[in-house]
């Protein structure tokens, strides 16, 4: 592909590289771009990536492993789009995704990305674990298979396969049971939602996943979906309608907010902790849902909610987006965004860092360990906090 064939060939040069994209909303730090925070070379800033993409498509530089790493280190956190003062900012991430897409079509992607996508092609999840094990997380929970219940509880790959994700998936299931919500799951028949696949630039694979999922959901008569992961929520809410998949999609924090408010869920058991909340990008900046998770926390007796300096649309991404919870191009350093984030959480004096995303959960929990902050800070999913408050072990 040359610049002329590139979908954004007529806009990509409009980046001036002024660097607003690196900041959080109040300029307190120049490190709100997770990749730039990690590496600090101008190449890793949003502007750097746009200029490099253009240079690559113009033939000024060659494709290289390093170039691929730079592009794939973008976590699609959307900070740049929120901060860029220019009108073309609405397409910044699309420009990155299209550039990654070109790498995908050329077959030239970093090896962990290749593995990620091949695993999804083969097993429907990035881990490459068998499809036949997808439902193992629910063993012994009594959670039912979906057969026309009010809600489809869509768990997602991390919730289905990652040990910590599985714990959260189970607890959320129990909370929904306790609240008497009518819901079912797909178990081994659940497939990847495709959100990360899309962000990794594998458009056709994403389309296939979306089409298959929409067909499956429609075949089962699904109307309402509640998701564990904001990533699933995002793509089902915003992308699936483009595949004729019109469902009423909510993130579980939104559902819990309503249940608690209407007295459907008794959280009087409380949760005694000073809690700070980390906004997941795909709930926050992508879908502007800043309130529901906070409302759930605030309505849980005993929770004292404190904010990190960077919050809501200024939150620092955990570094796990754009497939990076698996491909992990931002790990391995004290400058890794997850480690920066847990240090920031610690500074608030909170003893619990609450998350609402299984990707954030694993990223930040690992970071707490890497920072040696286990005695000071526990990372908990809001589902776990609510679970404890309503008496679920």
């Amino acid at each position, binding site marked *: 592909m040359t610049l002329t064939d590139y979908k954004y060939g007529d806009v990509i040069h409009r980046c001036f590289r002024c660097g607003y994209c690196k900041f959080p909303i109040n300029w307190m730090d120049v490190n709100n771009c997770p990749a730039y925070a990690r590496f600090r070379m101008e190449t890793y800033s949003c502007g750097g990536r746009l200029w490099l993409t253009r240079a690559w498509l113009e033939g000024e530089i060659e494709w290289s492993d390093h170039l691929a790493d730079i592009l794939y280190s973008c976590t699609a956190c959307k900070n740049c789009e929120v901060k860029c003062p220019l009108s073309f900012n609405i397409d910044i991430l699309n420009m990155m995704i299209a550039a990654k897409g070109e790498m995908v079509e050329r077959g030239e992607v970093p*090896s*962990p990305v290749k593995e990620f996508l091949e695993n999804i092609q083969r097993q429907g999840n990035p881990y490459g674990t068998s499809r036949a094990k997808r439902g193992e997380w629910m063993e012994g929970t009594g959670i039912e298979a979906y057969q026309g219940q009010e809600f489809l509880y869509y768990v997602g790959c991390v919730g289905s396969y990652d040990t910590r994700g599985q714990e959260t998936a189970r607890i959320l299931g129990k909370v929904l049971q306790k609240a008497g919500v009518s819901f079912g799951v797909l178990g081994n028949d659940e497939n990847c939602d495709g959100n990360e696949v899309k962000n990794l630039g594998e458009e056709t694979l994403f389309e296939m996943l979306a089409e298959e999922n929409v067909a499956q959901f429609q075949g089962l008569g699904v109307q309402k979906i509640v998701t564990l992961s904001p990533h699933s929520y995002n793509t089902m809410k915003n992308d699936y309608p483009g595949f004729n998949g019109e469902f009423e999609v909510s993130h579980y924090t939104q559902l819990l907010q309503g249940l608690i408010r209407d007295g459907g869920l008794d959280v009087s058991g409380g949760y005694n902790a000073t809690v700070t909340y980390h906004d997941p990008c795909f709930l926050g900046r992508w879908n502007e849902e800043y309130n529901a998770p906070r409302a759930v926390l605030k309505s849980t007796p005993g929770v004292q909610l404190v904010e990190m300096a960077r919050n809501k649309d200024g939150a620092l991404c955990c570094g796990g987006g754009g497939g990076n919870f698996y*491909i*992990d*191009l931002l*790990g*391995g350093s004290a400058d890794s965004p997850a480690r920066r984030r847990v240090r920031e959480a610690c500074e608030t004096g909170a003893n619990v860092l609450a998350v609402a995303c299984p990707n954030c959960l694993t990223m930040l929990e*690992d970071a707490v360990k*890497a920072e040696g902050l286990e005695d000071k800070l526990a990372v908990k999913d809001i589902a776990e906090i609510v679970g404890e408050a309503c008496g679920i072990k």
Partner: protein
Amino acid sequence: MSGILVVAEHRNRALANVSYQVLSKGRQLADQAQMELLAVVAGSDVDAYAKELAGWADRVLAVKSDRLEGLLAEPCQKIIAHLIRKIKPKITLMGHSSFAMDMAPSLSVELGIPLATDCIDIFWQNGDILVTRSIYNSKVNATYSFAQSETVLITGRVGEFSVEEGGRQGQIEEIEFDFEEESDYKKFEGYLEAEAGGVDITQAEVLVSVGRGIKDKKNLEMVEELARVLGGVVSCSRPVVDYGWLPSERQVGLSGKTVQPKLYLGLGISGAFQHVVGMKGASIIVAINKDAKAPIFSVANYGIVDDLLKVVPALVNKISELKGKTE
């Protein structure tokens, strides 16, 4: 009654370990069937090898020729084919080495004889020879028999057969062999020895070894850190070298180095036999792997079934704590 012929190989002025292994197996099979055990060794200077082999074999056939400098597959194939035709051994046995992988299949086609490679067991059953092979990622064992044939060709897995004392003093026969006109369609250019790097993993007391479970080069940093607190060195399995994440001098296994450290800590290594061959002599083997069924757990003394990316940082902390207490 024809015998069993073992093809010995040598490099760097020594017989290969695997040759001793298949020689021991050959001795056992010969004794069981009351057959003669023959060994053949070819090279430009094979006297010392022949003497060594005579400790096991009843007869050692020593083929000497300048054409055999470097032990190349093509001239050897000619010699072995010639000998098999002449001797008609019931079994021809070799180690499943790189040399054998180059030669044995062509040899079997040239002679029209059956070939079973990389066998983990070879045994008699009702007068027939059977072999067991390990297939599907070491997860299934398959037993095979051979079609009717005067001789069968078998290669045995490296490290699979223990070396037993032969206790023989066989005869040594020097064999002359006339090579035909040399063709130049395949020209040997030489051996390239692995470059000596800054780190010699064979000398380390503690090896922290990583496999593909490390997922990305960047995660090596935490592994380096673990090696540091343990006073060890980082080594790896083949995929890590294939990905270019570590130099080949750090590779443990068949195509890498054989190590015998006090502690071998395998991280995200599944434990394919090619790797295990290189590290099973370690005093303590610890494996950390997400897959509970990974074969490495059957060679390890201790195992943790979990994500190494989660365990390693914790381990670094705990070891540092414990070290702090004593220092």
